[in-house]
């Protein structure tokens, strides 16, 4: 089946700043929000945007991630005419190479893209939390007869130096890129979501691969080169919740955001549902002696202690007398009786038997390797 637009998700990175959470799994496979993995958001967005062909470029510690993606069944991306391909680096007659950068990860899969006969490609990160309909972005791309459309989001001016900044004219056409600028000229940050007209993408990836000086990165190499060449690059301004969960603090914060009733990322809305694997857990059980308030708790959890303002995953046990406050607890972890934890992230299957108190500026990470 011919797809007008296919999606490629870049999911190869390690996510070093997530410390031991990514020791054995790639960042996109890290647990999120009690029942999800981070990549569920990108894959659900793909499905909800009506895209039926998706490739996922994986590299770092990819076994768990590859198994999880499987045939795309969890997101309904396994129907007739649909295509879910895991795209790891591979050996070819020319030799073998790891993915050297974001652009190289796509370049090495040009043959895969060719076979989809697509007109457009949307390139996504596997480690962002947001809901977005890429078909609306494609309509914007077509309306502007754009070569490339970059999704952008307004950020507070004081935070702009942390992002790749995009400057535009009155018609949203991009005039300049600033990579983590000390003096930002705009408050529009790139979300790392790009729609390319495929013929142009193909051409520029090949040119980039032949450029020995290039770092083979979209933000640093491909996009500035296209801008310089006078191509039509547009900024698609996204309104809504979006978060890059690259650090322990931002991962914690994004989970706490789910508890905020005013948070724009409404996972309870039936519009653009976020799909995930079913763990076939029992319904959660809240014991007689438990106290649960202001928390998000997944199936399979058993709560006998106190749980306040926390996100609790499947098969987590909070024993009698334990107090959990402002925490994210990943699947299968146990908080032993009378243990107190606050402002912490507890890794998957960890048994916590001593108190851990973090602070907002220094979230405690309780994990097996620690």
């Amino acid at each position, binding site marked *: 089946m011919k797809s007008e637009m296919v999606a490629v998700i870049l999911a190869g990175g390690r996510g070093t700043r997530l410390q031991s959470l990514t020791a054995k799994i790639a960042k996109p496979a890290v647990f999120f*929000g*009690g*029942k999800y993995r981070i990549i569920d958001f990108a894959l659900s967005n793909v499905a909800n945007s009506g895209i039926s062909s998706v490739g996922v470029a994986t590299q770092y510690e990819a076994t768990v991630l590859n198994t999880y993606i499987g045939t795309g069944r969890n997101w309904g991306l396994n129907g007739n005419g649909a295509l879910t391909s895991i795209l790891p680096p591979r050996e070819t007659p020319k030799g073998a190479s790891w993915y050297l950068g974001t652009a190289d990860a796509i370049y090495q899969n040009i043959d895969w893209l060719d076979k989809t006969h697509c007109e457009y490609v949307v390139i996504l990160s596997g480690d962002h939390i947001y809901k977005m309909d890429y078909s609306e972005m494609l309509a914007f791309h077509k309306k502007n007869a754009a070569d490339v459309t970059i999704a952008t989001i307004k950020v507070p001016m004081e935070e702009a130096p942390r992002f790749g900044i995009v400057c535009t004219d009155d018609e949203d056409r991009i005039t300049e890129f600033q990579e983590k600028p000390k003096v930002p000229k705009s408050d529009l940050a790139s979300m790392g979501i790009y729609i390319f007209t495929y013929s142009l993408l193909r051409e520029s990836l090949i040119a980039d691969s032949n450029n020995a000086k290039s770092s083979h990165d979209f933000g640093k190499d491909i996009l500035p080169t296209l801008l310089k060449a006078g191509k039509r690059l547009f900024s698609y301004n996204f309104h809504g919740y979006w978060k890059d969960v690259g650090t322990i603090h931002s991962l914690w914060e994004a989970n706490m955001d789910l*508890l905020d*009733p005013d948070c724009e990322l409404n*996972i*309870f809305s039936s519009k653009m*549902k*976020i*799909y*995930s694997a*079913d763990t*076939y*857990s*029992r*319904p*959660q*059980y*809240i*014991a*007689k*002696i*438990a106290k*649960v*308030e*202001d*928390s*998000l*708790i*997944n*199936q399979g959890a058993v709560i006998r202690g106190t749980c306040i303002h926390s*996100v*609790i995953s499947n098969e987590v046990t909070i024993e009698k007398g334990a107090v959990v406050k402002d925490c994210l607890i990943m699947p299968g972890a146990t908080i032993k009786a009378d243990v107190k934890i606050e402002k912490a992230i507890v890794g998957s299957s960890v048994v916590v038997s001593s108190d851990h108190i973090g602070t907002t500026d220094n979230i405690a990470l309780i994990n097996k390797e620690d």
Partner: protein
Amino acid sequence: MARRILGLVNCFSNANFGPMTEHRSIASTSFLGRYAFIDFPLSNFLNSGIPAIGILCKNHIRSLSRHVGNGAPWTANTKIGQFQILYDEPNIANPSYNTDVANLIENRWFLKACNPDYVVITPSSTIFYADFDRLVEEHISSGARISLLYHHCTGLKHSFIGNRKVYISDRGKVTKMEINQGDSDEGDISLGTIILDYPMLESLLDYASGTSSFFTIADTLNYISPSVLVRAVKHEGYARSFDSLPHYFNYSLEMLNEEVFRTLFQDDWPIYTKSYDTPPVIYKKGATVSNSSIANGAIIEGTVINSILGRGVKIKKGAVVKNAVIGSDSIIDSNIHIENAVVDKEVQVLHIAEVKGTIDDPLYIARGDIV
């Protein structure tokens, strides 16, 4: 080649939950907020490594097929396996003729296509844990033609009504089966589960249809028990026959006792069910929840005590839900008080401040109603 076992879920029973099962079978009725009763026999089959499954559907095929779909949650290998709802179209409007035996005869083609070595038949409304892999092994080494699972229990005056009481010889052979009328409190009760070889099933069907067009499998077993070795196999642990609305209500709440729960839910024996991709449960500020089992997607702002909530239930601020079973996507509005009630799916309790039944006679609110 590995032994081929066919698992059949038998939905033929006279049990009903009154108004709650007017439009659905017990098999597809919700249990513990996220399951349907049929998930238990189907998961027993999958966990026992049984690849071929048939469902003997008595009626309400729409609700049943909506729940089980193509059987994907209970199928380990879609090429090797079979998953088929078996329906007796010619006899559907003719209750006396619409029996499990007639259904199997109508669907003999399915038995032939599966061509199993052994067949396990187990009911959809009697719930228990059973490792059929082990039970089939034991059946084979016993040399019996038919094995029948029974449970020794008390309380028969009020429970397992309509199931068969089993009389067993000293050597473990079934000598007689009769319908439990509640005349004595203690005894051996059939769980409606049999294991037999395929030729035996074929002869059983022939024998049944040659004797009476109204005969059920249980009737036939009773009839042939003097001449065929029907081996009685004692089942230990949890077993309940869900046969009335009060039983449904009480047995559901009983699951809030963790010890009882652990007798049905074994480690490494997941109960598979249809997935709805509902988010986790959100407990808002001011929520009070105690001794309750809650399925995903619920939003709780009020008080929930000793209750079972289905997927996506909303309990608004100031509402109090006590000793209640609330079906999926129902809404209990602010300051409403619900006690001893079974609230079906998609109900909105908005106007009546107090909804109260008793433990023995729970109040029932029908699917989709607004009260």
